[in-house]
């Protein structure tokens, strides 16, 4: 587990993006630097109760969140946080997750 989520910040206009882009959609700058964002607010959640092609699926929760830097990203929820909750972000490999702020 790695604290925060890696984002890509345009060197030219400083806008941050997730997922990674090739050119900045705001200014079309072609240079990015890595940055991290640590907090977000939950906007919508869903419990995935069924997965096509799988019979022993265990329900899990996902959420659309707005990060403190403004990105809207989809995360796995590691607890029972509800819409409106402030969460802290972390990564498992390339997958973004969130849980209630400790």
């Amino acid at each position, binding site marked *: 587990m790695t604290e925060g989520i890696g984002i890509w910040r345009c060197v030219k206009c400083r806008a941050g993006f*997730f*997922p990674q882009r090739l050119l900045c*959609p705001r200014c079309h700058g072609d240079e990015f630097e890595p940055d991290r964002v640590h907090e977000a607010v939950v*906007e*919508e*959640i*869903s*419990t*995935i*109760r*069924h*997965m*096509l*092609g*799988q019979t022993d699926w265990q329900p*899990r929760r*996902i*959420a*659309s969140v707005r990060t403190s830097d403004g990105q*809207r*990203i*989809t*995360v*796995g929820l590691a607890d029972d946080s509800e819409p409106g909750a402030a969460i802290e972000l972390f990564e*498992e*490999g*390339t*997958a*973004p*997750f969130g849980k209630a702020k400790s």
Partner: protein
Amino acid sequence: MNAAIIGVGQSAYTRRPEPGQTTHTFIRDAVVAALRDAELDARDIQGMAVASFSLAPDAAVDLAWKLGLSLRWLLQDTNGGSSAMNMLGHALRGVETGAASAILVVGGDATGLGGYAKVAANFNIVTQLHLAPLGHGGPNGVYALVTSRQMKKYGLEKSDYGQLAVAQRAWAAHNPYAVYRMPLTMEEYLAAPLVADPLSRYDCVPVVAGAQAIIVAHPDRSPRGRTPVRVRAHRASFNHDNQEGDGLQTGISTFAGELWQAAGVGPQDIDVASIYDDYPTMVLAQLNDLGMVPGSDLARFARRDVGERRFPLNTWGGMLSAGQPGGPAGGLNGISEAVLQLQHRAGARQVKDARLAVATGYGMTMYRYGGTAAAAVLERME
């Protein structure tokens, strides 16, 4: 206008293909049916456009080879739910410019349920890296979040989406190709198990195996006594907002005004609509983008116009009842139904005196929602 849709055809649809039934055999069946419908010989076909999630490792030219088609115009489209509409636009221009006199447009898939799950988990690099490891449930999970957003923004209730599912099932009763034809009640809709909250079983398009084809040619090539269908206007959009919006406005919102202006008609003139329906949420979003929902009151539209059967929407049952044979063929399904309606060949589901139709495509769930959209206004050529 020197191009029209002169024939349509489809294969059988099935939830579980039998051994020996493949993407290729379903596509063949649809091609044979379309040729028969257009009263053309395979030798008359000079161009082909194809879209499929499961044709690989074959490409379009391999399909041409296996169908025995020697061509001078060939296209393979990768835009998912808007592939059909996209291919239609290219085919119209191909015929109008003389690149080919008759173009076959075909889409089909036979992934099976497990195969579709693999497609959904590997839809693009972003999905592989950032969504599938969450167990996001494929498009069901993505559109569950979009649906919650739409419910909040427009004050929609779960039953409002049910109005679409129930109404479309009633249409499907008259479509012998639909995989689900039994009537669906609102009680059954609301009692169905949740798949990805708030989406339940009847909100999620059923994946089927099947294929669909249309033929575009000069209107004079239309079978004797049959009215060809022309496209008054066609527009498309790709990556309209860099996935930075809320997903409640599709790419259609970027061109709707221009589409109606080019067509010379307005939303109020439309007799029948084929709106790409992988989820009821996105049907409402597209209709709203098209300007077909007065005051953007989605709840009123669902309850009154759809629920009370005032507006002929997805009259073949839509993909929600007829089945989705992959996104590409699913889009062709709506175009084909519009053609049948405008040719007054839709049988028990015929909309009286239908003269104008709108059809859409929407797809490619890149990250938080779809990134491709297209629409056309079709007209019965009197």
